[in-house]
């Protein structure tokens, strides 16, 4: 088997960021609705709960270091079940990217480009994603690394102007103003939505050098993204109030609109939209990459560029057809609540069974 290109610690760390912060930047209002003022705590815990699943994925990667999780299933259980799972995996990735792109496009339409047809924006994003995915995974890794840093700096430097004038402590305390069930619901939803990370990880596990040994690379990424994202939710709530935060869309952008410093600092939502744009593009790139690799597993290594074009096309069509923010929002919530994590757990179970079978076949040669 050919050796895969290996990613660096920093690249894995920022891939983890991008994996976690996806549709949740729009659907976090659902967590606010469940957990009220403790939404940020629920988010923090919910993201950390991903760690066992991540460890499971990396542990499986240890047995077949140059393979994706679907390769393990193909080699052990058979090609047909692996293809079926790949198709479902592609469908989930398409849904994730389409909802992300549609929600971002609708946000642009509301705040900036009222007269630009959404199809143009989606087409541009898909073309850029195609160009980037056409390079190798190390280039994608380097781009993700640098853009994630820019996005985070951009987001938090805008909100730095909100301190202390715009922050209202009354909106934060008491932290636990809801039932335990509400908090658990919020945690469960967060874990489900942020399990988008596993979609990426299942594909790039073969690019992590000694995946289980270097599990701390991913865990540190999970931990810091939990801190960053729960902090973002806390700031939004402290600026808008928990009641408003759970009712309005684009909480980050709307709270950034409130920030003014005299008459010289206004309109910082432009920069926050920039962060959303980088997230949307990053997510599209990764979904396209996951689709492309899955296509390659199904159709083989023939005409790979054509397969990439096909992946771009299957991402573009539903994104263009979706059109409505509300539909996208509810699809994203549905995916996060009921689809992504259960599917990924079933894939991990099958891969674990596959490893057992491989061990038996090879007479325990696998360590």
């Amino acid at each position, binding site marked *: 088997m050919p050796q895969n290109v290996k990613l660096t610690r*920093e690249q894995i760390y920022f891939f983890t960021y991008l994996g976690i912060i996806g549709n949740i930047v729009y659907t976090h209002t659902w967590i606010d609705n469940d957990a009220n003022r403790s939404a940020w705590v629920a988010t923090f815990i919910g993201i950390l709960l991903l760690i066992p699943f991540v460890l499971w994925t990396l542990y499986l990667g240890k047995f077949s270091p140059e393979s994706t999780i679907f390769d393990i299933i193909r080699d052990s259980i058979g090609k047909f079940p692996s293809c079926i799972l790949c198709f479902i995996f592609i469908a989930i990735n398409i849904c994730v990217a389409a909802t992300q792109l549609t929600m971002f496009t609708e946000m642009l339409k509301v705040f900036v480009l009222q007269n630009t047809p959404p199809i143009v924006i989606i087409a541009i994003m898909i073309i850029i994603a195609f*160009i*980037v995915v056409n390079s190798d995974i190390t280039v994608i890794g380097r781009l993700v690394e*640098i853009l994630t840093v820019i996005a985070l700096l951009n987001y938090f430097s805008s909100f730095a102007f909100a301190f202390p004038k715009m922050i209202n402590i009354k909106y934060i305390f008491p932290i636990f103003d809801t039932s335990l069930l509400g908090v658990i619901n919020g945690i469960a939803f967060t874990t489900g939505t942020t399990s988008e990370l596993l979609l990426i990880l299942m594909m790039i596990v073969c690019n992590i050098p000694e995946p289980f040994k270097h599990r701390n690379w991913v865990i540190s990424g999970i931990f810091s993204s939990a801190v960053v994202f729960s902090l973002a939710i806390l700031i939004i709530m402290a600026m808008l109030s928990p009641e408003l935060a759970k009712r309005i869309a684009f909480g980050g952008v709307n709270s950034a609109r409130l920030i003014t410093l005299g*008459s010289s600092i*206004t*309109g910082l939502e432009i920069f926050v939209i920039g962060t959303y744009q980088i997230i949307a593009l990053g997510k599209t790139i990764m979904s396209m990459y996951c689709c492309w690799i899955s296509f390659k597993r199904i159709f083989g290594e023939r005409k790979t560029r054509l397969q990439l074009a096909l992946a771009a096309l299957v991402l573009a069509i539903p994104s263009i057809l979706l059109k409505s923010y509300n539909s996208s929002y509810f699809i994203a919530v549905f995916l996060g609540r009921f689809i992504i994590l259960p599917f990924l757990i079933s894939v991990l179970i099958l891969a674990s069974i596959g490893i057992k079978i491989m061990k038996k076949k090879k007479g325990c040669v696998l360590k």
Partner: protein
Amino acid sequence: MKKYEKQAFKLTNKKAAKKSESNDINSNPVRPSEAQNRKIFTTIDDNFGFLTSIFGESIGLTQTKYEILEGKAQVGISYMQNNVDKNMISSYIVKPIIECTGDYLIDTSNLSVLIQSKLIHIPDVKRSTEMKQVVTALLEGYAIIFLQDMNEALLVGCKKADFRAVEAPNNEVTVLASMDSFTEDLEANCSMISRRLPTPDLHFEEYTVGRLSNTRVKLLWFDSISNLKVVEEIRKRIQSIDIDNIDGIGELAELIVEKPLSIFPKYRQTQRPDFVARNLTKGYIAILCSNSPFALIAPMFFIDNFKTMDDYSENFFISSFLRLVRVLAFFLSTSLSGLYVSFVTYNQAIVPSTLAINIATGRDGVPLPTIIEVLSLSLIISIIREASLRLPGSVGYFIGSLAAVVIGQSAVTAGYVSASVIIVIAVSAISSYAISTTTMVYPARLINYFMILMAGTFGMFGLINGLILVTWHLVSVRSFGMPYMYPLIPFDKEAVKDSFIRAPQAYTKIRPSILVHDNTVKTGNNTKKN
């Protein structure tokens, strides 16, 4: 072909001419390529005839025969009048040979040894039996001594030193660093470097490239420091060059860099020997080329565009500040115009109200849309720069000042452009010249145009897409196999200390790990660490 036919047999020496008529070698015209595998003839006349048939008379080939050692032996001396120091030939070659008496016990088979060791007072003497070497040496400023009845010649270095003197570097002016710069003389350039790094560990490897130009190229590196994979890669690329003519280091560089379609410079051209020496000690590799007053330093990383020699002479606080200023200047030169277009046409919310009113008042009556206004003024700035650069000093100055007055003052007064656009374009243009490498100025200007177009089409959304595409290009570029965004990506904690900022020498003890193969420690305990 006809030229060679005409030039054949025209010897300066009559005897040689007579002899040549009866000689089979000279009875047919000779092409220069025929010298490739020829051995030197045993008679002086044959050698003279052969050279004359190759070069003709007009080139300035002088060939003279002398009887030496009181008629016991004969020698012939050939040289190109334009390439040699004639005084040197007469004083140190002809005079001692003619004045030599028969006191020496001569074994004519050892005549070449006698001439080389006892008579000629010039250290650069080579022996050759190949006509190809003789032809090349003649063109390079050597005098050739042929010996009668021997198929061997002495190649004596008498090159005329007509290169310009060492001057202060014009393109890379510094305040506190040294004031010498490279010239067109390859040997002088090498000596400027070896004077700074007098150690046998510094390797010089010479190549000749260009089928017609025979340009000499020297590859320099530290064997104990540099990454030998990079050395091997560069060596391979130089050896694979197959071209007629190479004028200078820029042309050579284009032939050896990967992905030549990238706009970013993947090598650094410098006039400064001190800069080359400093980089060699860090593990970089240098290439020098004859007739070029520049050295090429490879590989090059994005951050290297913001470094100058002054950085290492100044206090580290000041040099760190200046580097950050240069990085900011790069950002302004590439993005300021785009940001202006975006803020004025799409994202007005970010513009403070008083400034927005000023801009709106300034734009009152301007007939062009902002994007056209900004694009056309940027283009005019590029034209003015190009015009003033190509003209002689004082005229260029005049054109620059005239253009600034006409465009800066009259265009605004006439209402063709708004004053705020003039300010933005001027700041953007000036910022591009604050970057330390001249090769980064044009990429910055090109990115500027791209950003204006992106911002003019989609506002901030377009501008961020432009930023993403430029970043993607930056991270995908490699310079001689090394990632261009090093030390940021891949991250190297030690190398970052001398990147956007310059940490004090005491804290930068380790060389950039990607550039070195073994010896990483540059300050303090020089034990090998890997």
